[in-house]
């Protein structure tokens, strides 16, 4: 976890670039720093690998004050991707990717292996690209190498300063998609600077919106969209996006508030009984503290029904996906589309069940909103 505590930065010329910055970046998440040009995003990012030192305040990584870590050592343990890509033009792609492992004195074989691994990871055929020079690659390919170079020594933190802003729109979208895909695989803590709201909304787990060296609002993309702190945030997000969000309901507005539940210690006959009575084929399993455990379906119950000793605890299965109360219905639809699941439990941050969304819920909701859809044509 990265923490900035009451950080101020005054440059040598007296300009106060950061004023009392407090923020945290969670492990395994993409934190996006966003704001208009000159608001201090790059300055904030560079504090994290000590390219800049704060005038006042502390930067902590995993609760350790980084001012006590040698900057060179620190930087070798943090991946860094810069806007202008900054590949070394006199080195081959392989040497470029292997820079940090070489600085860390890895043996040759491990470096070669790692380079090929990374080329595969960023979707460039090692055979073809290994011994080329950066100038022989397109902008998009070059920045893929930039990302591979940052990942080379397996850092747990990666800093990216407007990494895709110099690319054409198509490569940019491609690389954004790839970053999202990659992040699912590598689960790094990424701090990502951009001035493009679309980009931020696409990739961010958390957005930190800055203005004139101060943080205006920070939170999940969802929170900024639903509860912009002030007019600046509203303007920055853009009226269009806000309207779009206002039209789409969130989970807690449409969910079934009292889904049929059962407890782990219940017997199978009891479960069956509950299903019959409420006319459902699935029960959500919770414990006494209302913590979500999983679900039992009628098929599971029937299969094990003969065994009188079996209880719900023995046969329930965990849910593959859960959502929060503020999840957009559109996002829930995406999950339904991409998985076979028929139920999405709605839980709080501490895993307490507060509702359930089924495919039926969504159809029902659409039926209410668009009652007359399709009655004209065909």
């Amino acid at each position, binding site marked *: 976890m990265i923490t900035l505590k009451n950080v101020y930065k005054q440059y040598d010329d007296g300009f106060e670039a950061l004023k009392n910055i407090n923020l945290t970046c969670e492990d395994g998440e993409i934190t996006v720093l966003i704001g208009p040009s000159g608001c201090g995003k790059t300055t904030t990012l560079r504090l994290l690998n000590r*390219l800049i030192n704060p005038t006042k305040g502390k930067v902590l990584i995993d609760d350790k004050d980084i001012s006590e870590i040698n900057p060179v050592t*620190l930087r070798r343990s943090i991946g860094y991707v810069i*806007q202008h890509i900054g590949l*070394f033009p*006199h080195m081959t792609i392989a040497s470029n990717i292997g820079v940090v492992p070489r*600085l860390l004195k890895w043996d040759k074989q491990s470096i070669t292996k790692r380079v090929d691994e990374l080329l595969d990871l960023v979707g460039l055929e090692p055979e073809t690209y290994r011994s080329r*020079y950066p*100038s022989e690659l397109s902008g998009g390919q070059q920045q893929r190498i930039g990302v591979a*170079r940052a990942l080379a020594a397996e850092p747990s933190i990666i800093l990216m300063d407007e990494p895709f802003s110099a690319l054409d729109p198509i490569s940019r979208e491609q690389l954004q998609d790839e970053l999202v895909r990659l992040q699912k695989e590598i689960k790094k803590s990424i701090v990502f600077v951009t001035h493009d709201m679309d980009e931020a909304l696409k990739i961010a787990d958390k957005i930190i919106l800055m203005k004139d060296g101060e943080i205006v609002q920070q939170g999940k993309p969802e929170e900024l969209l639903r509860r912009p702190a002030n007019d600046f945030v509203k303007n920055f997000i853009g009226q269009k996006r806000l309207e779009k969000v206002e039209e789409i309901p969130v989970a807690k507005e449409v969910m079934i508030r009292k889904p049929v539940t059962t407890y782990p210690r219940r017997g199978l006959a009891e479960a069956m009984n509950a299903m019959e009575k409420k006319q459902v084929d699935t029960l959500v399993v919770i414990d006494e503290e209302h913590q979500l455990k999983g679900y039992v379906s009628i098929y599971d119950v029937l299969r094990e029904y003969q065994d009188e000793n079996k209880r719900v605890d023995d046969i329930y299965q965990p849910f593959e996906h859960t959502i929060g109360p503020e999840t957009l219905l559109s996002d829930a639809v995406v999950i339904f589309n991409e998985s076979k699941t028929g139920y999405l439990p709605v839980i709080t941050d501490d895993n307490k069940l507060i509702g359930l969304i089924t495919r039926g819920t969504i159809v029902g909701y659409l039926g209410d909103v668009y009652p007359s859809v399709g009655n004209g044509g065909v």
Partner: protein
Amino acid sequence: MNGLIEFFQYLGKNWADLLALTFEHIVMVVIGMGIALVIGILLGIISSKNERLASIILAVANLIQVFPSLALLTVLMLFFGLGSSTVVIALVLYSLLPIIRNTYVGLKEVDASTTQAGTGLGMNTWQVLFKVQLPLSVPFLLAGVRIAMVISIGVAALAPFIGGGGLGTTIYSGINLRDPMQIYSGALVAAALAILADYLLGKAQKKFDKSKA
């Protein structure tokens, strides 16, 4: 036509002597260039790190450069006496400006984002210098060496005036003996040497440019 035949006959007779003198000439130039490279690159690096020093260093190197070669040799002779080593000192001094200036410009020309990437990835100051900045300024440096080399080969031909050797020896004795063949042979071989050095360094420069362009 006759003169040309006569010239080749002269070469045929005296090639062994000429070869020895050519070798002497090259040795002076190479030693001078070697020393100038070490000093020049160092001063170039210092200049690139400190603008105030840069203006002083470049001004002094420039001053040396505009000094007429015969005058410089004579002044140096007053301090260091006669002989080839005084010639080498002169060659070093003449080579400095192009080497310092091109190292300085080369280092300045390295893209800031490339240097920044080096630092950001965890290179220390020296590693950034030796792994990134200097390699990237090699094409500039080579251009400087090319200029310095041609100047040196020319200046080295004046060596006999202060007791040095090299191809100037035949020119000098040719003047004394009013033997044009001797003058031609020394002058032409020195010129050929300069053209050859220029050509080879030009090729090297192109090669480096290609790998980076």
